[in-house]
């Protein structure tokens, strides 16, 4: 399977995402924001970083890049699309996912190994988990607070669009402890924590052993299985 990883100006974690795709057993394809071409990939990852320096709003300018026309079309056709951190912010700005991400309630940048609960497993990116499974994925952001109007939050909860929820102390004031969302179809998923940083022994979050967490790998494997299915 070929998984496109899009690089925008100011993207930081594109190489990590490519490596995660490779460690999940598949072929990463580097894509460029300025092209109108997805190079025939089977799935897409919008990686983290600070596209356009977070100017205007996080992900706002990147969400209006040339390649996003094709990303939105592909997402609407059902292609698996994963947005990580800044990529999640782009998916919200592109209205592929509901709500928005704003500055953390504390005003501080937060970096920690974050416990999450997988709330929905019927998505392209979470189908290898058990419902309610606890995982640990690194979190690192200054604007990760998920917000939406009360009516929108109710719709999100009623329709089961919460993919991941923070466990323990809420790191940023996200409403309902929401860490990640899916669209109704389950092919588009966005989350603030970074699964691509939990794919390799010695470099992941500390779980039972130091830096041994590999929970992110199942997210990348999930999509590939859903494409193959």
């Amino acid at each position, binding site marked *: 399977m070929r998984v496109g990883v899009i690089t925008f100006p100011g993207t930081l974690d594109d190489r990590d995402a490519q490596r995660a795709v490779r460690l999940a057993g598949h072929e990463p394809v580097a894509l460029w924001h300025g092209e109108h071409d997805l190079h025939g990939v089977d799935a897409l990852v919008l990686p983290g970083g600070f596209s356009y320096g977070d100017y*205007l709003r996080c992900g706002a300018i990147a969400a209006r890049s040339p390649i996003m026309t094709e990303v939105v079309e592909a997402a609407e056709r059902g292609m698996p699309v994963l947005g990580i951190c800044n990529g999640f912010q782009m998916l919200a700005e592109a209205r592929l996912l509901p709500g*928005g991400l704003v*500055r953390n*309630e504390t*005003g501080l940048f937060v970096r920690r190994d974050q416990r999450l609960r997988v709330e929905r497993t019927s998505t392209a990116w979470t189908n290898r988990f058990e419902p309610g499974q606890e995982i640990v994925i690194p979190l690192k952001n200054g604007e990760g607070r998920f917000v939406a*109007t009360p009516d929108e939050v109710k719709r999100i909860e009623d329709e089961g669009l919460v993919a991941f929820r923070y466990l323990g102390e809420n790191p940023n*004031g996200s409403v309902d402890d929401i860490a990640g969302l899916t669209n109704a179809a389950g092919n588009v998923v966005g989350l603030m924590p970074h699964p691509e940083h939990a794919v390799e022994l010695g470099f992941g979050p500390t779980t039972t052993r130091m830096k041994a967490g590999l929970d992110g790998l199942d997210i990348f494997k999930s999509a590939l299985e859903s494409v193959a299915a």
Partner: protein
Amino acid sequence: MALIVVDVMPKAEILDPQGKAVTRALARLGHEAVGEVRVGKRFELTVDGEVTDALLEQVRTVADEVLANTVIEDVVGVHVVEQAAQPGAAQ
């Protein structure tokens, strides 16, 4: 030449950490008369020629679709500010 100003504010129901930080700073500095502070954005758009209704409509669309994310923010004002000086005129 004309200047169009677009003002954007975070939605009332969405907490504004910048505003909260400024509120706390003003209280610390002894400005007790000031209650809550909210922080928004002002965009200044310079346009050539006269401001027509069609152009204003275009600016309102840009404000709603790009300058603001209406999921989390409101466009609270679109104002025309005519430039006093013509291009090339003595200052």
